[in-house]
């Protein structure tokens, strides 16, 4: 009788890349839903445009590269990139912003390097930083969170704003947008006001910014679930949030009038989304256990530096990209001691 022959091992635990990506999408969805709730339909349109663009671009590039399209699309990695990019974008950006961002992320940052597994930089963050540098004005179009918005745009008004740049009669962009809490802290500190005064503004809630605090907590929960499911490495979020916490604690303790509290930093901007969903992209992160701790810690530090002294309100994208560059070096110097090697 004849038999099939394969290399050992002959059994597998059933884990798969598509399953990992599906879990990531599932885990990010409560936070994404809260973002839609707090910041309006614009977030939904960003998600939609970015996803369609990313999947279409991936299909096209894979076809051009002469590979089979089906199996590549089936890994859902383009969708993850698209969702992470979209969640970082302001809600009222024109349609071509998520379009260009997703196109740039998938074509240039991912496939020009060889596709999934071969890209040295986080594609979503490459797309985001390109947009941030090329279209700085559009990248500030954040809406006020639910509860603070006198003029909330409905579905069709948002669509009109995004696709045709038209706002409803009698409204201008100033009326429908609001600086993010991180942005407000940065500009107001620049005018010489103290944090105590700044934080009395209505945009700040019980823990951090209104809306932002809940979205961040939802990302935290989703991230913890991913760690529990062993879909992401715990070291990266632990390193990033740990260093962000420690550095902000030191400065907050030193001068709480000019430096925001650790809690504010941890629950503002892209802190949780970055720590659990963006920095944990395994392809571009460090891969040794200790390397991942350092990698995360580096991002946390850069985020704090940019938020506090840099030119942008948030620094997760730059932190991730800078640490992407450092990942191979970190891996080299943090190799675990192999069984039987000299201690």
């Amino acid at each position: 009788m004849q038999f099939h022959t394969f290399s050992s091992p002959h059994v597998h635990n059933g884990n798969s890349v598509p399953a990992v990506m599906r879990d990531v999408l599932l885990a990010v969805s409560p936070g994404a839903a809260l973002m839609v709730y707090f910041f309006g339909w614009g977030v939904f349109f960003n998600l939609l445009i970015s996803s369609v663009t990313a999947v279409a671009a991936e299909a096209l590039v894979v076809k051009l590269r002469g590979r089979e399209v089906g199996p590549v699309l089936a890994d859902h990695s383009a969708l993850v990139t698209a969702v992470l990019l979209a969640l970082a974008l302001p809600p009222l950006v024109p349609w071509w912003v998520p379009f260009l961002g997703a196109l740039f992320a998938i074509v240039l940052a991912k496939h020009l390097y060889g596709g999934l597994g071969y890209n040295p930089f986080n594609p979503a963050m490459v797309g985001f930083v390109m947009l941030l540098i090329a279209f700085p004005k559009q990248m500030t179009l954040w809406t006020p969170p639910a509860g603070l918005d006198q003029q909330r745009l409905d579905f069709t008004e948002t669509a009109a704003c995004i696709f045709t740049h038209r706002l409803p009669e009698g409204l201008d962009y100033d009326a429908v947008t609001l600086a993010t809490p991180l942005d407000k802290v940065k500009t107001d500190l620049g005018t010489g006001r103290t944090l105590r005064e700044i934080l009395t503004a209505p945009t700040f809630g019980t823990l951090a910014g209104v809306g932002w605090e809940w979205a961040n907590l939802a990302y935290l929960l989703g991230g913890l679930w991913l760690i529990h499911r062993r879909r992401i490495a715990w070291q990266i979020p632990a390193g990033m949030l740990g260093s962000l916490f420690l550095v902000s604690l030191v400065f907050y303790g030193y001068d709480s009038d000019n430096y925001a509290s650790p809690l504010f930093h941890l629950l503002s901007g892209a802190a949780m989304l970055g720590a659990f969903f963006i920095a944990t992209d395994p392809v571009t992160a460090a891969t040794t256990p200790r390397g991942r701790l350092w990698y995360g810690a580096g991002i946390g530090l850069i985020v704090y530096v940019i938020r506090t002294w840099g030119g942008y309100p948030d620094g997760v994208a730059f932190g991730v990209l800078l640490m992407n560059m450092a990942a191979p070096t970190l891996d080299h110097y943090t190799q675990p001691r192999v069984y039987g090697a000299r201690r």
Partner: protein
Amino acid sequence: MSYDFSRLHRFHGGLVLEEHKRESSETPIETLPLPDLLTLPLQQHIGEPATPMVRVGETVAKGQRLARPEGYVSVPIHAPTSGKIVAIGDFPVPHPSGLKAPCIVLEPDGEDRWCEPENPIEDYTALDPSALRNRIRDAGIVGLGGAGFPSFIKMNPATGRPIDLLVVNGAECEPWITCDDRLMRERAEAVVGGIHILLHALSAAQCAIAIEDNKPEAIAAMRRAVASVGDDRMQVVEIPTLYPSGGEKQLIYVLTGREVPSQGLPADIGIVCHNPGTIAAIHDAVVHHRPLISRIVTVTGDGVKRPANVEALIGTPMVDLIEHCGGYTPGADRLIMGGPMMGYALPEDDLPVIKTTNCLLVATRRTLPLPPPPRPCIRCGECERVCPARLLPQQLYWYAHARDFDRIQDYHLFDCIECGCCAHVCPSHIPLVQYYRYAKTEIWEIERERRKAEQARQRHEARLARLEREKREREERLKKKRKAVRTDGDRRKAEIAAALERARRKKAGGEAQGAATTPKAQGDD
């Protein structure tokens, strides 16, 4: 050094696997009837193949030596039953390559007639360790756990360090396999007897019999056997079920918390590890003068109708074992020798059982589905988390893929034990172990080439030096000759001149004063 095993240690990584032990572990070992033909490969062990000592047509008795060891790392092969040698030549053997290899083919005569034991031992405790070692080598005993390393070598630790601890590796951590479990349940006395012999031969003070806690019956049986001999050097240690706890290095760590040095042997830290089947075989060889001519094989999987453990003569066709166990079930499409984690898939079943055949796992696609096509590595690090050698499998894969054989050694490729944990959890379904084997083979090949080139270079340089020396010697000889000729010539000239002078003087003197001497030719000096 002495150990107490009250606190066990946990090695890095490892896997909890579906055990599938019950399928075959609940019925006693069955003995297979004599097969029609026995095929005995000359290499069933790590090392050099044995050399045949019999001719085609010769009648042999059971236990008679058919092939003698070649070199140090080698063992003899014995006739599993009496009969006639019908062929010596290349036949298919169970090897991943699927290639043929030299074998002796024996046709049983049905009498099962034993030969006279060569030199019976009355009391092995009176023998010195080296005589015992020879005895065990002469019995053809190799590691029966699957690796097939000649056992006598482990009894002769080259490091010169004394052995403190004998570890009996009864972990049997691979799923499906139960041959050691059954052996320890049914023949615990033989195992304990073998331990006695080994402790004597190794002059070791302590023995740990390590068994995974999923084998309570085997643990109880071994405890009873140890208690009945009342030897307090032996201790049964129940260890947690975690693959690959039966890996020699992992087991030693579990028991002692010590690590075997990289590229080293357990003997380097005073430990020797043997499989219980091997130890029982040593007992049979020393006490009953029975060479290694049979072994217990687990025949299991959902591809076979009645899974069981059978005692089969070495050389029995695998298909006989499967037929004994009720034959194949519909849909059987994979035959694996060994376990599902480290065993290798065989292309056909008309292959002989050899000394290392611990298990025949026959599976349908239900239990062992076809592997899906691999996806790119996303460096998720799951492999690193489960690696019991604490390697970075993702980096090893990267460098194997890139054929960067220098870097891959910086990442300790040769500390990989090929347990398969990494590939088991890989979400991209990359056959990682295959890449590591490939890289190891390539590196060995490069090393061989390098050594060959080095030899060729040395040969070439030696030749040049010889030519140079010969040339110099020739020149020297020539110079000497020339000089000789020259001095010779001068002497002749002088003699001629002297003769002429004498002649002149004679002429001038008018009278001959004496007899003139003619110059004599001078030979070479």
